[in-house]
């Protein structure tokens, strides 16, 4: 039984994408980064991965908070696993625990007596990229910030594309007065200073990630609408649409079965660039202080810290490095996709 039909064209495109080395390698790296960030709690956390205590195995990462009393400590709040590890080692009675490679979560302030953060990178303390101005681990904040940014962009992409594709298709397909009217609406829309609205809304409510996505989607659908409008406009003049229509296909059928499948390559080509755009927009907003609320780990907030505290070079360089790696990988993936979907065969004179 065939559960999924992969057309030979799709297969060919996939093969071609694999042959674009730079794009394919970037795609693998990007997928790996997203995958790892989903399980970031296992890699960067102040909770142990496994605790072996008096014959019991415990997995605190995804479980509920385990109070210190459970491990024979004298407090009721969450266990300090880093201290527990030291205690287990000293006692040597068969108890052990495994900490994640970076034993800090992105919210805790690791302060030292008599010294003021930020602290430079230190392998001894396992602050591989140092700490920020209030003593939080930078690597933790960079990784969790990546997760926020990439999922933010993916949701944003979905919203923008649903809106843009449907409206763009309708505009291009039906044309006429409707098209002319919506062209003006789009022109007006794209001219409203988007930052202004974001600042306004964040002065009324504290934006959480969903509200921020909605605000951004409110302004983000325009580009895709223009693109889809132009594409539909071109496609509907082609012979195959005429043929479908003369066979009696309805407008809906023509749009969904004929036009959209033929424009899918353009839609896919724009996606990586939309993702990098989303990441940059979120970072810019956080940098200006109009993005996600304060303790949320974000790249923009780190960049602001790096900008205000330039002597702490490790703050800005880690976040810029993370940003550059991510955006370059996304951009190269996009470039690879474009080459695979729209191969340009050129004559070359030797």
């Amino acid at each position, binding site marked *: 039984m065939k559960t999924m039909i992969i057309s030979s064209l799709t297969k060919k495109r996939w093969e071609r994408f694999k042959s674009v080395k730079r794009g394919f390698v970037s795609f693998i790296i990007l997928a790996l980064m997203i995958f790892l960030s989903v399980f970031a709690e296992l890699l960067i956390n102040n909770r142990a991965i496994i605790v072996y205590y008096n014959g019991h195995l415990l997995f605190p990462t995804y479980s509920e908070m385990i109070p210190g009393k459970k491990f024979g400590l004298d407090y009721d709040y969450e266990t300090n696993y880093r201290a527990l590890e030291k205690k287990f080692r000293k006692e040597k009675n068969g108890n052990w625990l495994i900490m994640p490679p970076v034993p800090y979560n992105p919210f805790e302030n690791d302060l030292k007596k008599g010294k003021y953060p930020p602290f430079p990178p230190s392998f001894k303390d396992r602050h591989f990229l140092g700490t920020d101005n209030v003593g939080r681990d930078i690597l933790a904040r960079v990784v969790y910030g990546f997760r926020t940014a990439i999922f933010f962009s993916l949701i944003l992409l979905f919203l923008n594309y649903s809106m843009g594709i449907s409206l763009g298709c309708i505009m291009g397909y039906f044309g006429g007065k409707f098209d002319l009217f919506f062209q003006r609406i789009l022109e007006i829309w794209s001219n409203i200073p988007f930052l202004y609205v974001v600042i306004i809304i964040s002065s009324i409510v504290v934006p959480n990630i969903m509200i921020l996505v909605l605000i951004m989607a409110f302004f983000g659908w325009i580009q895709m609408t223009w693109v889809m409008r132009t594409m539909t406009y071109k496609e509907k003049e082609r012979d195959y649409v005429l043929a479908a229509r003369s066979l009696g296909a309805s407008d809906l059928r023509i749009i969904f079965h004929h036009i959209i499948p033929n424009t899918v390559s353009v839609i896919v080509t724009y996606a990586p660039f939309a993702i990098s755009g989303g990441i940059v927009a979120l970072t810019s907003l956080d940098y200006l202080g109009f993005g996600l609320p304060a303790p949320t780990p974000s790249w923009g907030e780190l960049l602001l810290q790096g900008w205000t505290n330039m002597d702490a070079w490790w703050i800005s*360089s880690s976040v810029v490095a993370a940003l550059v790696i991510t955006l370059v990988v996304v951009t190269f993936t996009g470039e690879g996709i474009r080459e695979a979907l729209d191969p340009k065969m050129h004559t070359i004179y030797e």
Partner: protein
Amino acid sequence: MIAYFIRRLILIVPTFIGITIMVFAITRFVPGGPIERIIANARQMQAMHSSAGGSTGGTGSVAGAGQPLSVEQINRLKKYYGFDEPLLKSYFSWLSKVLHGNLGRSTRYYDPVWDIIKARIPISLYFGILTMILIYGVCIPLGIAKAVRHNSGFDNISSVIIFTGYAIPGWVAGVIMLVVFSSRFDIFPLGGLTSDLFSDLSLIGKIKDIAWHTVLPLLSYVIGSFSVMTLLMKNTLMDNLSADYVRTAIAKGLPFKKAVFRHAMQNSLIPIATGFGNNISIILSGSFLIEKVFNINGMGLLGYESVVDRDYPVVMGILVISSLLFMIGNILSDICVAIVDPRVRFNKH
């Protein structure tokens, strides 16, 4: 064709009204406007007075609990800022003032908006023109070189470099350049456009000083702009090189170099021309993020600050200028295309 452009010009009017009325309406519904700011200031003053004066003023403490200004005072303020009239009416009185060339006064500095904007224009223009020269000056030759040496080592390496540049937002590049070159190595200044002692310098010293302050912001402006235009140039040139007319030219014995520069080049510049008109709005508006990072007082930073400080007349003034430039730029682009490409005819829509 003239009819087409006239229609485009007429269509500016509804769009312009649509844009300004939307933003104008938003300014009405946002908390934290000028009146609330004055009330907050008055409350602060009063708190300071009552704490300093102790128990002397009995009347002040009665009103101070809630509202420092009387109803009459607030009404007068509303009238001053035009908040006392319904939305549409005050919008049209604003519009008629704009048509008479009066953009109003800033609620922050109490200066005429146009004077404030006028002072910032040269700075944005300076960076805009330099950016444009650099971008066109680099992209067109680079695109040609890449097209002619397609798939060579040079082509691949320059592709990687320009795509990396494209991936980095200019202002992020600005932050890291400031940290590295200004803070760490102290080669370039930390921001601004002139040194503190600028007025004491000789003419050559002044030029040197400005140039020294220009390098990093300019790099941030251009870093991301190379890729799109270079690849556009490269791809169109390659399309043209594989077109029949170039093949004919080469077949009849024309040297390759001549075929590129005499025949293919001219046609390849058409897509570059499509974006040319939009430069006028890019030149003037600048990027507020880059201006904020480098602390340059251009139009972008002015717009950002006025939005944050709810200086509505300045916000609206900048909006008027930028939206007009944007729409005129679009039309100019179309005219550019019509000039360079004799095939384009805007007869029907």
